[in-house]
């Protein structure tokens, strides 16, 4: 049994009140006055990290993120590379970027032969719906890349 919410009686004053309230929520809830990065900024970081190599997107690097993040303050992210972790097939670093954050850098993991496997997980902040990018650098200089969109939802009443 679903009861109906009574439609509100709208007049100019109450509309203005709500516009004002909504604006206030926007102002308090988000970092103020800081421009977000663009996908181009993130790709520039990838090129710098890759050191001239073309990033491969063949699936050697797996990026795990939720499709929907309930709150951008804590979004789980996991990376793994299918690798022997020795010789040329050794993962040296994995960098994670968020291409719509104020600053696209998130974290860079560094692995060693004692790592055994190139896997790592953490929790990150996402300022809005955007793509998360992971790039792995191998001992032989090869670079692998993966990308995943994450939808960041905003709470029902902003509260």
């Amino acid at each position, binding site marked *: 049994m679903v009861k109906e919410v009574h439609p509100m009686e709208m007049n100019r004053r109450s509309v203005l009140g*709500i516009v004002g309230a909504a604006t206030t929520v926007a102002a308090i809830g988000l970092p103020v006055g800081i421009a977000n990065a663009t996908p181009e900024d993130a790709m520039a970081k990838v090129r710098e990290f890759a050191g001239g190599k073309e990033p491969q997107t063949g699936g050697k690097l797996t990026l795990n993120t939720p499709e929907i993040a309930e709150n951008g303050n804590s979004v789980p992210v996991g990376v793994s590379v299918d690798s022997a972790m020795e010789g040329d097939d050794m993962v040296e670093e994995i960098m994670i970027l968020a291409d719509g954050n104020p600053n696209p850098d998130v974290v860079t993991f560094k692995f060693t032969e004692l790592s055994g496997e190139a896997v790592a997980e953490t929790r990150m902040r996402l300022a809005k719906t955007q793509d998360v990018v992971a790039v792995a650098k191998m001992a032989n200089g090869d670079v692998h890349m993966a990308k995943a969109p994450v939808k960041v*939802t905003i709470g029902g009443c902003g509260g």
Partner: protein
Amino acid sequence: MKTKVILAASVLALFSSPAMLVTAYGDPAEAELSIDGEKIAVTAAAPEGHPFDTLYSGWLYREPETRALEEDSFENPGMFGVEQGAELWSVVEGSAGKSCESCHANPEEDMKGVGASYPKWDADSKRPINIELQIDKCREENMGAEPYKFDAPQQKALTAFIKHQSLGMPVKLDLSEGEMQKWWDQGKEMYYTRTGQLNLSCSNCHEDHSGNMIRADHLSQGQVNGFPTYRLKQSALVSVHNRFRGCIRDTRAEFPKAFSDDLMALETYVTWRGSGLSVETPAVRQ
């Protein structure tokens, strides 16, 4: 400016068009929860006189990633608060040279069940008190220490520590003590009273529309069995009165003071609405 207009427009659309709220996406998940081997009742048969048949923990309305965070007490950041509470237990404060430990030497045993049974009638003040007020009462009367300021980190930590000792135990209030029933009635009255510029009552969202979406969010039954709760939004433990005030504020109303008669009545009634659900403190929510 454009985004502000769109945001305002979506708020207007939401509340002026009830049809938007009615979707099936917000239904509770079918899942079971156990924490550290302790089985948590995330559903319960409603007590007599309750508007629902089945009670659902807010845990069931969350995305799998948020649910997983509560399931693993190692990863649950709310457990830092519980650990801090355990440390505060033996810290001596006040003119009597006592700590909590002076009277309650084994909190793991002594506090078992306590968090499941509050608010409780307090004959001295002639009103129901919650765990936060019980801590203050102990501090003032037994320790000769100052009561905590509302939402002081120590208050949240000690409350979380005490409630955590009842993890998995069913919420059960004794309404036969003192005037508890009168306060329950008053809380119920508040629950169904519309308030604020948006003219919403607790029941409009959490009873009429629980299980529906409110914008991109799931509306839960508004249960309080997991407070203090680790909220991702604040990245900190959030007390139940903080959450009440937040909800009331979101109706664009003036909100009552923490521990006021209004909020103690509301806590009594809302806690009863979760009778039979397990204590989940510290729960994890969005």
